[in-house]
């Protein structure tokens, strides 16, 4: 673990190995960079832009941008935080996120980020888009109302499960997650134990019959903000 690259995040010296991304190096040093589409064990996608940092003043996705010696990174500044808040707010208004009855509530990364940023209501008008639900699979529910198009399930199914059950179809506002079958999720070889089911950050892909098992107050983000585990860990501990 000999650090050979040094750079700064918000003025703090961060040691890193060549080839690491800014997000990985930050995490190792106990600095949390908010993220949504990034997931441990999956190829970085760089699509949600929540991990945007300013690298020498230029916006870059920290999950795909490699470290470089001496670069100056802005992470937890007013400007960057405002940008991230706007992205989170847009994700809320462009889907149908009904937290009050969602099984994922309390364990949802999108909701947890909104809590962390103190968002009480988005500043944008709600779109209430028409989205569909695929409940055909015996063990897994696919609710596109809650999908934020992070692509974690696409990558997990393709790269980890080796099945390629999910992929994107359409462009722009018509983009949606599709299944590799003539019609429904039940006709794919998706299994409930697949990585693709586990990695969904929101309530779009859910295991059936296990909802609401953990009482309110004991769920993942009820007491501690998302990222506080990374901030609490000693440098080099991860």
């Amino acid at each position, binding site marked *: 673990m000999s650090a050979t690259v040094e750079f700064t995040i918000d003025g703090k010296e961060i040691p890193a190995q060549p080839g690491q991304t800014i997000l990985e190096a930050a995490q190792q040093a106990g600095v949390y960079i908010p993220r949504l589409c990034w997931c441990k064990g999956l190829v970085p996608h760089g699509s949600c832009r929540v991990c945007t940092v300013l690298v020498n003043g230029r916006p870059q996705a920290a999950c795909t941008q490699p470290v470089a010696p001496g670069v100056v990174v802005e992470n937890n500044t007013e400007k960057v935080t405002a940008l991230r808040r706007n992205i989170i707010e847009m994700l809320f208004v462009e889907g149908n996120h*009904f937290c*009050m009855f969602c099984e994922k509530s*309390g364990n949802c990364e999108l909701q947890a980020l909104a809590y962390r940023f*103190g968002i*009480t*209501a988005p500043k944008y008008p*709600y779109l*209430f888009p028409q989205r569909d639900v695929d409940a055909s699979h015996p063990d897994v529910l696919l609710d596109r109302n809650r999908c934020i198009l992070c692509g974690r399930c696409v990558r997990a199914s393709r790269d980890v499960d080796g099945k390629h059950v999910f992929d994107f179809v359409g462009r722009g506002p018509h983009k949606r997650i599709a299944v590799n079958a003539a019609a429904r999720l039940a006709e794919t070889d998706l299994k409930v134990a697949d990585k693709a089911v586990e990695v969904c950050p929101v309530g779009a892909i859910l295991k059936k019959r296990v909802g609401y098992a953990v009482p309110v107050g004991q769920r993942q983000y009820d007491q501690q*903000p998302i990222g506080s585990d990374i901030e609490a860990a000693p440098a080099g501990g991860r």
Partner: protein
Amino acid sequence: MSQNGKPKVATTSLAGCFGCHMSLLDIDDRILKLVELVDFDKSPVDDIKEFTGRCAVGLIEGGCCNEENVRVLRDFRAHCDILIAVGDCATMGGIPALRNNIPLQECYDEAYRNGPTVYNPSGRIPDDPELPLLLNRVYPIQEVVKIDYFLPGCPPPADTLWAALTALLGNQPVQLPYGLLKYD
């Protein structure tokens, strides 16, 4: 302000379930402190139907699903210095907004003609002039009038309502600690 010098608070439930008002009652014995601090004007708490004067704070539960909701909401904006959206229905439409991507006619047909428990041989949809007309969809209240503060939650915890009300009545900014900001 009322004659005894206390600031006045008004509350209402638009397209809501009164759960947020229940949460307000859930402040338990602090409600005795609250009635020392404020007087209630138009509110289901004291059953005053129309405003009797200027209010410091208006608490709005529920979104706007019909023309009556819009009238009441505009009335609150005209009479209150500070308007607070209380709960998810006020903030984002909530459960009533589940109808927002179903055409209005389909909603009527399901409720009054085709629903599995409906008995309505005439097939007539209620149309008494007394009944407020439904809007094309349910609107979060900030899309109808200016809202000063939002307290999301279904309902917002009693501690959240208490923290916000006491801050405002003490001329302090509303700052919710982590754990009091909830969407569920």
